[in-house]
């Protein structure tokens, strides 16, 4: 099968949807003339012109709100944040305007909009450029939150997000744009809210999503060398969460580790852990353990970063712990 980059998969999804529906447009900082801060939108200005691909001023609150209004009046905006770290400036429009509009208006106004861009750490960028916002947005009813880990998933899920009638937060990573993966020619969509078992196994379940999936899969590879078969689940969507797939796996393996880059308090991993103990208590042979970032702002210092973020080593330790192995 054809192999393309993560950024190309996202671009293909946007291009296909923009060709299909003239109401879809892309708006964000540097998306047009500069061809995207991370070259995701490369070539799109040339194909669609400035009335479909808008360079914005550095005014996240303004253009996020503009997107909400455009969505309420018949269009399907894709709003790109250079990273979700900058979406904090716009968070009122995402939470108060887009997510609550349908409920507050008693079902009269929906907001079909996609807010997309990278989340999480991306090397030595310092604390302001390194936060994970998956759990922040997942906390808000009215939003859907998609965090894919492969080019294939990214393309199918982004197309579904653009066609969705409600606001979708679509999260990528600067560290994944160069990743390559198999993506078939031709159109396909993937359903929002369905997890994917990326590796089958019977001894332990490792659940993760987004960039941290790499850690989960690498750890599973290592474990296989020791004869431990880990089942690795990629949530792909963190709101809604596909609990059924997770529970089914845990009921089979009886052991579970969750790997997530966000800080630990009120994270996706804490929510998952709650659901697993609540619904699979009798199946568990060990308490669920999670591997998150340390509970501190991410430092610029390389050794500190190494010591803060989840990694394969900490994941292996967690697995050994739930398996009661030394």
């Amino acid at each position: 099968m054809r192999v393309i980059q993560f950024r190309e998969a996202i671009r293909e999804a946007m291009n296909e949807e923009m060709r299909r529906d003239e109401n879809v447009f892309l708006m964000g900082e540097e998306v047009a003339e500069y061809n995207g801060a991370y070259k995701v939108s490369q070539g799109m200005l040339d194909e669609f012109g400035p009335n479909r691909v808008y360079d914005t001023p550095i005014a996240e609150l303004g253009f996020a709100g503009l997107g909400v209004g455009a969505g309420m009046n018949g269009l399907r905006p894709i709003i790109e944040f250079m990273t979700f770290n900058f979406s904090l400036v716009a968070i009122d429009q995402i939470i108060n305007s887009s997510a609550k509009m349908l409920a507050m208006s008693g079902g009269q106004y929906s907001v079909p909009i996609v807010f997309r861009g990278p989340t999480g750490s991306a090397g030595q960028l310092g604390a302001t450029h390194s936060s994970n916002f998956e759990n922040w947005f997942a906390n808000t009813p009215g939003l859907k939150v998609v965090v894919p880990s492969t080019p294939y998933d990214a393309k199918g899920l982004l197309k579904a997000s653009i066609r969705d009638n409600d606001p979708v937060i679509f999260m990528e990573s600067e560290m994944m744009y160069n990743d390559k993966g198999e993506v078939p020619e031709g159109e396909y969509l993937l359903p929002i809210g369905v997890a994917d078992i990326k590796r089958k196994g019977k001894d332990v379940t490792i659940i993760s999503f987004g960039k941290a999936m790499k850690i989960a899969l690498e750890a599973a590879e290592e474990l296989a060398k020791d004869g431990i078969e880990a089942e690795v689940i990629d949530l792909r969507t963190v709101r809604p969460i596909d609990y059924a797939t997770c529970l089914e796996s845990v009921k089979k393996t009886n052991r579970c580790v969750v790997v997530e880059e966000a800080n630990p308090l009120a994270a996706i991993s804490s929510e998952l852990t709650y659901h697993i103990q609540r619904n699979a208590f009798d199946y568990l042979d060990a308490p669920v353990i999670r591997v998150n970032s340390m509970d501190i702002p991410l430092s610029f210092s390389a050794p500190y970063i190494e010591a803060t973020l989840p990694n394969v080593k900490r994941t292996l330790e967690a697995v050994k712990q739930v398996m009661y192995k030394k």
Partner: protein
Amino acid sequence: MSSSSKKSKTLDPEKGQHLFYQMLLIRRFEDKSAEQYTKGKIRGFLHLYVGEEAVAVGVIQALTEEDNILSTYREHGHALARGMEPGGIMAEMYGKQEGCSRGRGGSMHLFDASRRFFGGNAIVCSHLPMAVGMALASKKQKKNQITCCFFGEGAAAEGEFHEAMNLAALWEVPVLFVCENNQYAMGTAIQYSHAVLEIEKKGAAYGIESTAVNGMDLMAVMDATDKAVDKIRKTGKPYFLVCNTYRFRSHSMFDAELYRDKKEVEEWKKADPIPAFQDYLLKQKLITKTELEKISARVDKEVQEAIDFAEAGTWEPLEDLTKFVYSEK
């Protein structure tokens, strides 16, 4: 600016009487709302529009049914001027499912898709960029549609105001920004929140045509808005209209009004737009005393009907609690 003379020639009795009816309806609806609030029938925050009626009525008469309207949490007047049912608004404030937002929005979140009324927006200034986005959508879809956005002078101190103005001018979209300068943001007088008191000057920074008008004078508001709307339809560009006005009542129902002098309020009440317009209609022989009495009786009846409608309303069933969080397929 004052150019009511030109307008008066075009104001026929029917229209004049309708506008008078709208202003009176808003006034009495608001007074009654305050009463219902005191009785505990209406809960939550309640911001009344008493004193500012000429702005909503004068601006909205210039719009067509195809145009969009966004307002603030002080929006009952705009909703009524737009022709929304008084009963639906009152029921909404009661939290009843017969309300215009099914009782899910309350006083600050009135919506009516059938009249292109987009709130009821209770985060100060959040609807300005939304209005620009709606206008951008009209432009892209080649609709003959203006988006009209009401907000207070307090909102004009938000960064979002400036972002919205810049985006509207940059992308040349048909939006009418209407600043209702009622001199106070809660208890903060304009001179304590704005370095430049002539709010209309802020439009110039973005190359947006801007005008200030006496917001207590219905004819002046109408005239200025007609011109503004005409300009927007011709050029497709944004316009900034500042209506200088005053609220006679407190900011919300939780406000002892310690920040302003009673004499100041009394002074402004002399400029009350309703008696002023009534005098004008009588003088121009656009209305008779009998007709005035008829309108007054009609308004009283409609306000009472609104209360009755709200009282008779029902709560949405608990089974529907989780509805409308996401769209139905």
